[in-house]
């Protein structure tokens, strides 16, 4: 390590490497959130994150989120059946799954709309995880007319259980936070083009 000097940054003979395409950057470069990018990659990033998301993006995010929520709900039941434990902590996994799925569906974009969508879907998934238990404990006489009161009952369950067990409430809160966090808007600080001067002669 003795050969290292700490007066000036050295970027080797190839110069700066683009964080996106991993190729040496010839000439000017762009700084995105503190890392160097070439002009082509910067343009692609601007295009991917710019503009308003369309209806198709939202529909895909909704579909992916509902699917992930259904998997999350089923996970509670499967794990309870296998292990005998109803693990409150699974709320975090549900938030993680739904948040990731919504983000994927939205093409990597985040934003308030997707954050609200992810949080709502996570909550619904956690609430409906009790559905198999409710059905098992009922006499099996549910009809179409019972769907609305049953849904209302299930949606109120996390709050009711949370009021009795602060543990469950905290963990559900963390699950919702996971969903919110994963769909947060990406903040891009783009500087450039930056012209690099050759280092001054010693």
């Amino acid at each position: 390590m003795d050969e290292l000097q700490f007066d000036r940054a050295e970027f080797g003979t190839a110069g700066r490497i683009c964080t996106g395409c991993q190729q040496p950057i010839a000439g000017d470069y762009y700084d995105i959130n503190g890392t160097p990018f070439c002009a082509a990659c910067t343009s692609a990033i601007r295009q991917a994150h710019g503009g308003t998301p369309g209806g198709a993006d939202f529909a895909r995010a909704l579909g992916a989120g509902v699917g992930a929520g259904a998997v999350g709900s089923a996970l509670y039941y499967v794990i309870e059946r296998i292990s005998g434990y109803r693990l409150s902590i699974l709320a975090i996994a549900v938030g993680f799954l739904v948040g990731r799925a919504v983000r994927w569906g939205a093409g990597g974009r985040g934003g308030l709309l997707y954050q609200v969508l992810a949080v709502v879907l996570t909550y619904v998934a956690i609430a409906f995880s009790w559905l198999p238990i409710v059905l098992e404990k009922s006499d099996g006489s549910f009809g179409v007319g019972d769907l609305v009161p049953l849904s209302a009952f299930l949606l109120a369950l996390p709050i009711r259980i949370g009021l009795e067990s602060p543990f469950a409430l905290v963990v559900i809160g963390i699950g919702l936070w996971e969903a919110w966090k994963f769909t947060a808007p990406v903040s891009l600080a783009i500087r450039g083009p930056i012209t690099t001067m050759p280092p001054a002669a010693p």
Partner: protein
Amino acid sequence: MTPPPPVPTTARCPQCGAAIEPTALSCDACQALVHADRLKALAATARAAETAGDVSAQLEAWRVALTLLPPGSSQYRSIHERVVSLSRSLTNPSAAPPATSAGSRAATWTGAIGTAVLFLVTKGKLLLLGLSKGSTFFSMLAALGVYWTLWGWKFALGFVLSIYIHEMGHVAALRRFGVAATAPMFIPGFGAFIRGKQPLATVQEEARVGLGGPIWGLAAAVGCFLIYVTTKQPFWAALTHAGAMINLFNLMPIWQLDGDHAFKALNRTERWIAAAVIGVMFAFTTEGLLILVGILAVVQAFRDAPNVEGDRTALIQFAGLVITLALLMKMPVPGTP
């Protein structure tokens, strides 16, 4: 009233005077390193630690230096390579034997008893150090209060301390690799967590840090078990069982749990061996939690294992933890069905 002065949005390069971003690590115009003086001081610290044979201190200094260098620079790459090399010397001493550390040199002189005393003194100091942090202490008190209402103060205290010891196992492992970490923060009903302030350099490092918590947690559970064997008080059996359960739960190879960090270092064969050990222990103990851990281990075994060289130490640690924790969970707790 005088308005506050505006916050500067740009700074000046100390070398050429060009405008630079306040968070810039080097000047775009002349490439001068903004933190040159600090970097030189860190390099001197690392060299002094190298002379003293203190690998952890070297790692600590170089890791801080990495945060002050532009990631694309050759200095960054050189230091990163050095960090990886030093880290490997700790995770796999036979590959690159580090110089004898001051601590281990002392241990050679004082023998096995001296090593044990040294361990208790240094780790005991670390355990007390964690409690001196306000965020840890007060969040711990909050968790204690919540558990108290459920199980009474005695069990709540033992449970919270078990979690604390588990977390300090992670802190100790991070310190060994020279990574700065936050103090443990308790979340009632969830457990506790710590965060490393710098990224880990290798998957082996991640596995040691991940398993550091369950290893210390196991030590706490074994301590409770020994007290139970001596006193025959059911309280200690219950605490042993609870301690074993939280640590076994953390061995699930999923999300950000400790088992997931360990599995990142295992190759496919080692993942299957881990799954087999879990299966054998389930057959022996019929503990339901092992089914969950086992299913997740099998899923991980089917997935791509990027670290093809594997990590035998991580496998031995993981398997040892599964075996001992499962056995502790099998121990009957008087007064429970």
